[in-house]
């Protein structure tokens, strides 16, 4: 397991060796990205009409073809197979650009590049790569990823689709997959199935991964009629004794579930990038609308309740951008396991977008509610992000569980109290503040206090609940929110420090303004989450929920 900023936050440590310096793109990569951005935005302006895609429930063929022409499908594929071999920092920045324009097209692209081809890229054999990657790079083949089933959603490990080994050495796949992005048109699907012929140590059937071509005979079901991203394809896939040759198994038998989790973990920064792109676009649209819309003799952008919205949207989006690019930079530079940090990016990204689109709709008033403006469509498109690629609930528990692993070990050890960790865990010591410019000293101190609070809360919960903490979902969520706040503050400070170093305090005035506001907002959010651990009415909530479940609605109704 490689290094993690977040796991050390739970121990009261601020890893300035990983947090600093902020990983800006170098000049060459930045110039390249500028060109990519220009290509994408010009292509989009000429060919992508998000409102039409939403209404038609379909991305038109010319968009698919145009994206192929500009080389969009090969972004993550190595150059030797005809791709561009973009690293995560570059790929996510390109995702940001497409997501500004259309949510459905962004999801289609991510379904291909982020999860669809990932098993092949990470675990495929040389022969498998040579067989499929060149055609995936040109877009001749489009990819999808199939894990979920009707009875296996968040609990993916309970999947039932099965591959039986036949006498001729091939496998026969049967079962149903659900919610398959790109499933309606994909030519190659990464499918996770039970393999009873390769039992686990406990005798239960293991999970393995196969590359299944459409021509092998699975049947896509009816397109789901969705709230948002209506132009994207989401279908069930039906497997009725589909024969798949043994050479299409990816990795070793029984490795499927670990692979599925790693693919999802590694892909979440891409989704966060989508959310960043959509949020930035919404902020620009809201800025324009509130400048142009005049009431009581002045643009509504001058009214404090509108300014509050524009200000907090900008602060949140800035924090999200810092967090996503700090994370992608770490993935590329340190090659660290990005599971927890990526999960935080996904949680924060999807929730910042949801808050942003909600504020933007409100800024636009009645117009925000109509299809004459992009706001209502983007609100519908934004909602699913909090659900798929791991619900934000499951991810919060995952963040807390991963973070708690080390405190759980250490609180039980005899010499803990007298150790450095002991001093952090009992609130006697806070981590050294990140070295940042003078102007951000107060924010840096606040971050140290936030990390100290997190370490203390983690130690207390570890002592109280032990390994059962995973079941204390509300406490886990509070811990995850404290983690999110501190990780985001660290990212914002990292970027601001780099900008001030490079440009000087005067030139960095806007960066400092954003950083200060974002840090304070995040610190407040962290303190609020810490407060939820101490001051809550969870018992009342649980009892009420039980009554609701039992009565099937509001308890105690009176005429």
């Amino acid at each position, binding site marked *: 397991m490689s290094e993690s900023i977040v796991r050390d936050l739970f121990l009261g440590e601020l890893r300035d060796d990983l947090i600093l310096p902020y990983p800006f793109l170098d000049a*060459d990569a930045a110039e390249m990205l500028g*060109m990519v951005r220009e*290509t994408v935005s010009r292509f989009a302006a000429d060919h992508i009409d998000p409102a039409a895609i939403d209404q038609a429930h379909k991305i038109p063929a010319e968009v698919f073809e145009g994206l192929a*022409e500009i080389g969009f499908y*090969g972004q993550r594929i190595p150059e030797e197979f005809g791709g*561009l071999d973009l690293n995560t920092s570059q790929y996510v920045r390109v995702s940001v650009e497409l997501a500004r324009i259309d949510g459905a097209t962004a999801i289609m692209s991510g379904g291909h590049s982020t999860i669809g081809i990932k098993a092949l890229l990470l675990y495929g054999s040389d022969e498998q790569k040579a067989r499929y990657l060149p055609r995936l790079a040109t877009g001749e083949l489009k990819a999808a990823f199939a894990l979920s089933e009707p009875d296996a959603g968040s609990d993916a490990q309970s999947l039932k689709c099965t591959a039986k080994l036949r006498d001729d050495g091939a496998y026969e796949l049967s079962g149903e997959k659900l919610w398959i992005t790109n499933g309606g048109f994909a030519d190659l699907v990464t499918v996770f199935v039970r393999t009873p012929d390769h039992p686990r140590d406990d005798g239960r059937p293991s999970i393995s991964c196969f590359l299944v071509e459409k021509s092998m005979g699975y049947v896509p079901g009816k397109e789901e009629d969705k709230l948002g991203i209506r132009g994207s394809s989401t279908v069930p896939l039906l497997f009725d004794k589909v024969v798949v040759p043994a050479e299409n198994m990816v990795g070793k038998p029984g490795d499927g579930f670990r692979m599925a989790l790693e693919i999802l973990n590694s892909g979440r920064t891409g989704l966060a990038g989508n959310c960043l792109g959509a949020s930035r676009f919404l902020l620009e649209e809201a800025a324009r609308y509130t400048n142009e819309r005049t009431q009581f003799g002045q643009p509504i952008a001058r009214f404090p309740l509108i300014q509050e919205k524009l200000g907090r949207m900008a602060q949140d989006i800035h924090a999200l951008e810092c967090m996503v690019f700090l994370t992608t930079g770490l993935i590329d530079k340190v090659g660290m396991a990005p599971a927890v940090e990526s999960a935080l990016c996904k949680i924060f990204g999807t929730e910042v977008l949801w808050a942003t689109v909600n504020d933007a709709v409100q800024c636009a008033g009645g117009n925000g509610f109509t299809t004459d403006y992009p706001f209502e469509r983007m609100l519908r498109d934004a909602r699913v992000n909090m659900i798929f690629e791991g619900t934000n609930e499951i991810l919060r528990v995952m963040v807390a569980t991963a973070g708690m692993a080390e405190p759980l070990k250490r609180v039980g050890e005899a010499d803990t109290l007298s150790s450095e960790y002991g001093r952090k865990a009992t609130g006697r010591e806070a981590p050294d503040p990140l070295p940042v410019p003078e102007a951000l000293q107060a924010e840096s101190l606040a971050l140290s206090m936030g990390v100290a609070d997190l370490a203390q809360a983690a130690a207390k919960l570890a002592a109280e609940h032990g390994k059962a903490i995973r079941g204390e979902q509300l406490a886990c969520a509070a811990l995850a929110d404290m983690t999110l706040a501190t990780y985001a503050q660290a990212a914002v400070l990292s970027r601001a420090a780099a900008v001030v170093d490079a440009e000087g305090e005067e030139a960095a005035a806007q960066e400092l303004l954003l950083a200060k506001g974002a840090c304070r907002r995040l610190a407040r959010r962290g303190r609020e989450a810490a407060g939820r651990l101490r001051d809550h009415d969870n018992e009342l909530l649980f009892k009420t929920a039980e009554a609701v479940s039992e009565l099937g609605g509001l308890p105690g109704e009176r005429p």
Partner: protein
Amino acid sequence: MNIVVCIKRVPATDSRIKIGADGTSIDPAQIEWIISPYDEFAVEAALQMKEAAGGGEVTILTLGPAESTKELRTCLAMGADKAVLLKDADASSRDATATAALLAEAIGDLNADLVLCGKQAIDRDQGQVGTLLAAKLGLPCVTEIRKLEITDGKANVERAGEDGTSETYNVALPAVLTCTKGLNEPRYASLKGIMMAKKKPIDERDVSAADGALQLASLELPPPRRDGRIVGEGVEAVPELVRLLREEAKVL
């Protein structure tokens, strides 16, 4: 065939222009820069000719600040073979004569069979550089071409003439042609092309020029649009409206 295309880095059309402190230049802060759109027609034409001929070389030439490598790189990403940057921090204050002289000097080394330019850059809109360049090089010039074919070592070009007529010329090569809308649809730089552009050469040369014959004395933004005026309501307002349109706005 060696084709040289001259391009210029200009502010994007939707930029909010501010006048710089010196009163004669545009404040570069917060501006997005692009290749002047007419120059893109020239680049596309060059690439199409090279592709049709199955060979040859397309060289992109610009006079501009060091940052112009971005626009050159974009042309390389579209498919051009190499680029020359005449680095001049004061490029924006050079007049057309000085600009043409510097470009002509560079083209002298490039052994060009054909030189293509946009009909004008969309920042100053003077439309002089192409013709001045032809004069400096002693080459024939056709401006604002909207069709181009090369046959038997000659360029057959079409341009719009007076009153909607079409003029077609046969031009001996080498020649200078300036391009306008309708000539083609410029391609996007593909992502693959962008990656490959990294490996293509940009020849950066420091240049300096004597002051040109023209000195820009001042640069001013257009006056802000005046507020609308309501002259009355319904049918009664029509005579007054007509009077104002005729006498004040002078549009009738």
